[in-house]
């Protein structure tokens, strides 16, 4: 199970909202390079914002995919906007809340709000948000055909869905 940037789905309102969390761990290899010690500064492990966006895209992508029983190949097409107001460090948890704004045969627009729990007793605090636009690639990119099987929603995604009791969403 490799490229999975959410750990667990915690809330789901069909066709509306999906919430997932990710625990940031010092066991994640890339944190030792981001950032490694250098130029007289000590190491400072913190989660790259690009991976926060990937987690947001996976959360929102599952929400979008669930509408069609995961038959459509849902791909992130555009990050319309994104902002983060703080960093996330090992030992903290991020919570991604995705809302579906519009969906049609071509794709969907979503907004994902991220909060962070530092586990220092203050609960969940705002971290940032992004507007993400997804494309149903089989319906777009005229002239390009893709493999028949849905390579987007792989076994790894199924495992996450199963853990939340949502495997029934696959049709």
């Amino acid at each position: 199970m490799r490229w999975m940037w959410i750990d667990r789905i915690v809330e789901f309102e069909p066709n509306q909202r999906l919430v997932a969390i990710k625990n940031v761990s010092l066991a994640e290899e890339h944190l030792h390079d981001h950032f490694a010690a250098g130029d007289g500064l000590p190491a400072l492990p913190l989660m790259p914002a690009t991976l926060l966006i990937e987690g947001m895209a996976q959360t929102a992508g599952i929400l979008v995919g669930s509408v069609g029983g995961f038959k459509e190949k849902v791909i992130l097409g555009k990050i319309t906007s994104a902002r983060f107001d703080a960093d996330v460090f090992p030992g903290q948890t991020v919570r991604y809340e995705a809302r579906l704004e519009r969906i049609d045969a071509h794709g969907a627009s979503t907004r994902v709000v991220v909060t962070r729990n530092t586990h220092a007793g203050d609960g969940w605090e705002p971290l940032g948000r992004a507007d993400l636009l997804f494309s149903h690639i089989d319906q777009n990119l005229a002239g390009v055909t893709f493999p028949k099987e849905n390579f987007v929603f792989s076994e790894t995604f199924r495992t996450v869905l199963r853990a939340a009791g949502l495997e029934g969403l696959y049709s």
Partner: protein
Amino acid sequence: MSEIFESVREILAEALGADEDEITLSASLTGDLEAESIDFLDIVFRLEKKFSTPERPFKLEQGELFPENLMENSEWVVDGKLTDAGMDMLRKRMPHVDFSAFDSDRDVNHVSELFTVKSIVDFVERKLAVPA
């Protein structure tokens, strides 16, 4: 006209990351404003959101604003060029676009360049003028 233009200008500025001064009526979406196909989807969604009211949803059908899958229809496109039937279809389906200069070119890859800011403004006006 100008209220719709203001709204369309705002939408395009957000969707395309363009300055409002660049968004003139004659500006071409793909040429001057560098819009890509994913941006077209963004624009459609924002137009639907902006011009819908509770009493009257503003819903765009597939291919209503921007034509789709032209290449796949051999009645309309042969060897990468629009046929007479194809030109007729475009003119009928997209009254909000000006195809007169395109008639001598007809290269299907150039169709998207014809879409200007004015095409969108005209489209919205026409659609809103249809009785609910």
